């Protein structure tokens, strides 16, 4: 069997074996709840906005309901599989609640089947990345296929950053060949909004190549039509969910900003969260002249994304998956970058939280859960976990900085090399002209 197929099958087998038994209750619960609403023809943004208004009314604080806050198209990757599940299990809810701080009620034997079905789009995205990488370098495909971090995020957590990864990777690979297709794929990578920082890069790269730019923007616009639809039918809801919520979130995550979790003052936290946003804007503006028109596209994309990870105020554990295939392709980047967010997962959430589908299956396991949870909550309450979380957050930020500086350094060398080549070419040209001139001079009567 061809090695490429072997790696793909191995990646698929590992994921299928794990998928039914684990989940992040909050995130998988959101996809489950949103799939059900979408299948019934409901408006997801109205639902989330309504919950947010309830919370704000109750608390008098600018808090947000953390539900479906993604591109409208995303849910349609999951809806067909949810629909298939309802054909098997019927229309009744098999996962009740689960939004933080509640724990879900799970109905057996349907929960493992639901988890498998809802993770199929993520698994397919992962497998597609492995297949594409294997076509370039089988060693890199192996790393992606078996990387504990990627496997954990996709099939233990149930987060769909692999979908962003496959679209970003294919958008990069098709950029120089088919601008329309690249634009569509880039638009689809906006399923999670953080790839939006790449838009200025793509636009500036194509600036002057008007046909390509038009095609790219046409492809992108095509994917944004559902957003336009919701902006017409429920403008306040989609604006609140996609712009206000995402734009005014409190900083934190696997980054140097998670110290803010210690500061229990939401209004202050929101005010100070403006600092990284300003720096993100500045860093993008500084990167544009460096990478906008020159340097390899791969390094340029990674520089923009790493800068957004460095200065973007929210960096969740799973975000790195989206650029992990590109990191593997980049010779200047260290692919071991995944270790920090992987470690962070276990400091922020106890492992048993991901094993709820197993632990909820038996009263014996449930009692283990309760015992473990008492210990975990004690550790959390006294702040023992906050210290390593902060250390890992800073370490990850510094590692991102290190990788970014390597990319900048490498492209500077290339630029200098390029300029040197240009200078050499100019010198040769002058020499030829002098020679021609002297010949002409010689042959002119």
């Amino acid at each position, binding site marked *: 069997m061809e090695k490429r197929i072997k790696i793909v099958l191995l990646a698929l087998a590992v994921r299928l074996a794990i998928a039914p038994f684990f989940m992040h209750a909050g995130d998988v619960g959101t996809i489950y709840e949103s799939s059900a609403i979408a299948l019934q023809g409901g408006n997801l943004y109205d639902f989330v906005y309504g919950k947010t208004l309830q919370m704000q009314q109750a608390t008098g604080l600018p808090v947000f309901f953390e539900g479906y806050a993604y591109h409208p198209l995303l849910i349609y990757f999951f809806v067909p599989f949810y629909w298939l599940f309802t054909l098997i299990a019927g229309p009744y809810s098999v996962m009740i609640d689960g939004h933080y701080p509640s724990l879900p009620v799970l109905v057996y034997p349907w929960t493992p089947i639901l988890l498998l079905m809802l993770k199929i789009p993520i698994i397919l995205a992962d497998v597609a990345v492995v297949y594409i990488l294997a076509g370039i370098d089988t060693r890199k495909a192996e790393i992606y296929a078996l990387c504990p971090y990627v496997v954990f995020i996709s099939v233990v957590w149930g987060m769909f950053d692999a979908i962003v990864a496959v679209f970003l990777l294919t958008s990069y690979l098709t950029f120089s060949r088919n601008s329309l297709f690249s634009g569509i794929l880039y638009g689809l990578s906006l399923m999670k909004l953080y790839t939006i920082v790449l838009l200025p890069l793509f636009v500036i790269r194509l600036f002057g190549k008007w046909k390509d730019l038009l095609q790219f923007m046409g492809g992108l616009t095509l994917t944004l039509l559902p957003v336009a639809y919701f902006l017409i039918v429920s403008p306040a809801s989609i604006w609140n969910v996609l712009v206000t919520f995402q734009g005014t979130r409190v900083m934190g995550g696997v980054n*140097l900003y998670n110290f803010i979790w210690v500061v229990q003052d939401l209004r202050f936290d929101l005010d100070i969260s403006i600092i990284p946003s300003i720096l993100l804007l500045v860093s993008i503006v500084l990167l544009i002249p460096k990478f906008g028109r020159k340097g390899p596209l791969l390094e340029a994309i990674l520089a923009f994304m790493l800068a957004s990870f460095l200065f973007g105020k929210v960096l969740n554990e799973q975000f790195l998956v989206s650029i992990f295939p590109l990191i593997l392709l980049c010779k200047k980047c260290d692919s071991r970058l995944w270790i920090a967010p992987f470690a962070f997962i276990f400091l922020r959430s106890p492992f048993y939280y991901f094993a709820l589908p197993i632990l909820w299956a038996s009263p014996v396991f449930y009692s283990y859960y309760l015992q473990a949870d008492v210990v975990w909550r004690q550790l959390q309450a006294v702040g023992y976990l906050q210290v390593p979380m902060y250390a890992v957050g800073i370490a990850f930020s510094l590692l991102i900085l290190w990788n970014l500086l390597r990319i900048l350094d490498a492209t500077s060398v290339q630029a200098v090399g390029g300029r040197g080549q240009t200078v050499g070419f100019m010198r040769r040209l002058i020499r030829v002209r002098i020679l021609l001139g002297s010949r002409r001079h010689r042959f002119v009567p």
Partner: protein
Amino acid sequence: MKVKSLVTVFFAVYIISLSFVPLVHDALLAKNAWLGYGTGAYAFQNQNYFVLFNDPYDGSSKPHVQMNPDFAPNDRIPIIEFSDWTSWVDGFNFFNDFNVTMRPNQRTLDVTYSRPGILLHKFLTATPDNITVELVSDKEFTAHLELWRWVMTSVNGLSIKDAPKPMQIPTTTQIEFTFQDYRLQSEGTGRITLSRVPVQIMIWPYENGFNKITIDFVNTEMSLTVSGSMTPVGRTYPTWNYSDLPYVLPVVAVLVVAIYLLVDKYGKTNKDRASRARS
């Protein structure tokens, strides 16, 4: 200086500067005001007390009154916790049967419980000497309140020996209880002063003390003023507490940044080693 060095220095300074934010916030902004956080919880800190009023999705700590002992000012020792899970008004559960809204003023948190036919306010007022929880309605209501602490060694002079089973104690406006804190090697006293004599007060034994005081009353209003004090029994040692974190984070930041700078300067990458080995 090279761009790389400049960026690294900027970033190191940036990380270390930001690590002081919690400390600056604690010192300048966090005192004497109800501050909201998380999914809608509120907290108040003054020189003597820390009060938590939990978010609308949790029925515990409504409120939870804690004190900062003089001899360990960063420590938070629980005095008493009001529970909405286990308290009722006119037969309706505070947590499950009411719509709740919270609005803070400088020193008072106004929590409104509403349902058809009943509108009740729970006002939480903090002063340096005590914390007052006041229940007010425009019409008379029957209330059953449950106040929790693990555990009280005595309540109004009664120990577990005097009350091995749940027991009704003489109604009064003063409830005084004692407790021990093994971590701080200290003994504490908590006081609850009621604005009116209730219908019934009961104490509930648990292990070697009491873990619950229940108060039943019928009125249009009732205030419960909570205060506490602690005295060390033996020699007290410094202990770790959540409120120490703002002091620790800058140390963590400096350490991690220093390690990065050292590794960046003196460390070798795998590729460096490989190329040296080849050469």
